[in-house]
């Protein structure tokens, strides 16, 4: 079947042995690619209860059927899948750039990495030639330095590299995997999994042709999307980019500020997308094959942080800025660069710093315990110092490097109440107290607190529902969005380009058919999205997660929004959460315990996994 290389590469890092397994057409169609295929491969190559940081936990890298084609945003994604050391459930993170296209051209749909190398190595994939090369000299280097060094020693500029920094080497549970200097497979701590395998980097060069089944119609579709990407659907990404959200969300009082102490930042104007673009954005660049370039590169040209360069999005801007009460844009950009330098997920790092600041202000941590750092909210120097400590696991950094859940356990007292996480994964910048569809989306997200498993906040933002109300019907809204998002991450196309699809399922089905030559209907594709979400749930159940983990951070449920304004007093009660969860499980055809029924598994063609739900349904 076109669109697929039909090859899965297995690499045993302990022995250096590799083998290639054929990807069957049935599996390909069933799980599409990306996170879907990756989770299927992870499940097939792991044992229940596996320690995420042990050699027995496979790390899967997967691309999709659209990868390396000219479809805008479709050519360029890749996904890492494993058991998350942060959540102990399914971990996955998608990144874009050019790395994924190169994997596909090298002739692989997925790579399954197992075992642990005795010494630091990097994986060098040159089409059919696969080698483990010494990385002793790269150990301790940043992802950016690592990439440059590998290109130099392999003598090829067009080699693409994904690597970890010091945080991944130190197995920090908020470590990410970066490719091409500024792109991160950020969430769920997969950098730590890579570090636990002594695998510093994956370098790849692929030279194979990529062809599609119906080239003429495919190119017509590409042209159509190019036109849409020049129009209003991509306007936001082409201009201010996602940092535009700062002022929008602040106006809606749904921008968590100072670790969820507030929902509105009084100094938002100072860190707005508008100011960022005017003062710091030097260039907006694009990933491979994309016609709507959205990657905003900020450069600091003067002052104490002169020479700093980082990619800025709403997410890192929020986490390291308003979330920590910080209104100095240059320091936020510097903090983002530091996260890239150490290979830390900027989102989780920002929330870890805001947690420390909260603990400090509440008297749970003293300045002495913080190595002398005056961790007041709003102190930009403290932010930068704490990131250094976390990146190096030094001093207080040892307590913090595994994210807020573990830090709170170490600190004790009531620190857990200030730890903004779900399932062990730190929150993102959407105040769930006044975005109740989003709250449900966050609670049930299989990878923990995250907006991008369902994008459920959009219905709250757009006023399609009463965002302060928890009511029946939200379950189906979240489910439907989750199914589409799972497809986006499996094909792989880009979530920033979601608005360029007029009809997501119909157009994705058309795209899949034109690329692969296998006709698929929108209904079949929708079922694949549901299957992928259900598979993720099955992994979580197998690894011991249950309904009690589909919950919300303490502050979201106990500390109402204090500001005078449209959402004063908003909070999500346990009754509301239960109502929402019941409604969601019902929409999914799962039991009230959040367990898929055997009938549901049968319907989705997942009956081979019914052992996982055995005895857990009621």
């Amino acid at each position, binding site marked *: 079947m076109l669109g697929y290389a039909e090859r899965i590469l297995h690499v045993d890092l302990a022995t250096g042995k590799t083998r290639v397994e054929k990807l069957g057409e049935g599996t390909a169609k069933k799980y599409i690619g990306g996170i879907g295929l990756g989770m299927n491969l992870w499940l097939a190559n792991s044992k229940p209860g596996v320690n995420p940081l042990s050699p027995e936990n496979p790390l899967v890298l997967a691309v999709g059927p659209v990868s*390396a*084609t*000219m479809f*805008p945003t479709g*050519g360029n994604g890749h996904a890492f899948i494993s058991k998350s050391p942060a959540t102990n459930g399914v971990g996955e993170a998608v990144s874009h750039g*050019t790395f994924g296209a190169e994997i596909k*051209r090298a002739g692989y749909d997925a790579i399954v990495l197992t075992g642990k190398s005795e010494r630091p190595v990097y994986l060098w994939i040159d089409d059919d030639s696969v080698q483990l090369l010494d990385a002793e000299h790269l150990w301790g280097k940043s992802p950016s330095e690592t990439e440059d060094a590998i290109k130099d020693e392999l003598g090829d*500029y*067009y080699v693409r590299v994904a690597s970890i920094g010091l945080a991944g080497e130190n197995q920090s549970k908020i470590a990410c995997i970066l490719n091409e*200097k*500024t792109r991160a497979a950020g969430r769920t701590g997969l950098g730590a999994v890579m570090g636990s395998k002594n695998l510093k980097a994956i370098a790849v060069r692929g*030279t*194979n*042709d*990529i*062809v*599609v089944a119906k*080239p003429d119609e495919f*190119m017509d579709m590409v042209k159509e999307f*190019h036109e849409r*990407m*020049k129009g209003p659907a991509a306007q936001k990404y082409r201009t201010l980019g996602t940092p535009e959200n700062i002022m929008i969300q602040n106006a809606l009082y749904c921008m968590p500020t100072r670790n969820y102490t507030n929902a509105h930042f009084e100094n938002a104007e100072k860190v707005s997308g508008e100011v960022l673009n005017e003062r710091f954005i*030097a*260039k*907006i*660049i*694009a*990933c*491979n*094959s*994309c*016609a*709507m*370039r959205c*990657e905003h*590169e900020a*450069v600091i040209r003067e002052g104490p942080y002169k020479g700093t*360069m980082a*990619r800025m999005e709403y997410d890192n801007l929020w986490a390291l800025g308003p979330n920590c009460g910080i209104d100095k844009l240059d320091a936020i950009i510097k903090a983002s660069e530091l996260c890239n330098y150490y290979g830390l997920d900027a989102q989780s790092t920002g929330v870890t710093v805001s947690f420390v600041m909260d603990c400090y202000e509440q008297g749970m941590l003293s300045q002495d315990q913080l190595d002398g750092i005056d961790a007041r909210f709003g102190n930009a120097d403290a932010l930068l110092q704490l990131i250094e400590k976390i990146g190096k696991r030094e001093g207080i950094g040892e307590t913090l490097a595994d994210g807020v859940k573990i830090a709170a356990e170490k600190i004790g007292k009531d620190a857990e109440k200030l730890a903004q996480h779900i399932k062990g994964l730190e929150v993102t910048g959407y105040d769930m107290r006044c975005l109740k569809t989003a709250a449900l989306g966050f609670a049930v997200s299989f990878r923990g607190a995250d907006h991008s498993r369902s994008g459920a906040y959009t219905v709250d933002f757009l006023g399609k529902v009463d965002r302060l109300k928890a009511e029946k019907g939200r379950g189906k809204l979240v489910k439907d969005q989750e199914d589409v998002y799972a497809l986006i991450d499996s094909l792989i196309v880009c979530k920033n380009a979601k608005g360029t699809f007029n009809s997501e399922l119909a157009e994705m089905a058309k795209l899949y058919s034109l690329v692969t030559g296998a006709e698929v209907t929108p209904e079949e594709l929708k079922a694949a999205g549901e299957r992928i979400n259900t598979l993720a749930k099955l992994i979580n159940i197998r690894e011991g997660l249950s309904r009690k983990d589909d919950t919300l951070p303490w502050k979201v449920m106990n500390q109402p929004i204090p500001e005078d304004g449209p959402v004063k007093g908003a909070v999500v009660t346990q009754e509301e959460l239960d109502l929402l969860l019941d409604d969601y499980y019902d929409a999914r055809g799962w039991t009230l315990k959040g367990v898929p029924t055997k009938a549901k598994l049968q319907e989705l063609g997942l009956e081979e996994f019914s052992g996982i739900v055995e005895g857990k349904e009621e």
Partner: protein
Amino acid sequence: MVKIHERKFVSVDPEKCVGCQVCEYACSFSKEKAFNPLKSRIRVVRVNQIANMAVTCRLCEEPACVAACPRDALTQDEQTGAITLDKDKCNGCGWCIEACDYGAMMLHPETKVVYVCDLCKEKGEPQCIKWCPEEALTLVTSDTLAQKARIGAIKKLFQESKKESKQ
């Protein structure tokens, strides 16, 4: 021989180029019916995140590639200035690749002879230009490039003098 000021080639505006590689895909698809940057006549270089630029043949006057070929496989088209290859004469030695200052000559991975931008003469217009989503690519003569630079410089000068007069 075509006059230098009439010779048109594909030029890239580095201010506009975002490094998306759409030109590479458009080129390889048009020429080889496959998506493969390695077979594209135009290549994108991202020196760092803010320095992106596509590069292809500039149809030089007295082209070094032609001069370097010991087998007389390369000639410059008198009408258009485009470099043409006699495939039977080329043995893939790579001297032209070494001679070109722009990296516009490349060795084809399968045919093992060199290939270079031919301005898509069979299609009537360069496909990279047609597909570039940023309108960063244009077909120019050295004269139009100079004009553009001149106008840009003068506009900037006047903007700055306007600013100064306001202060």
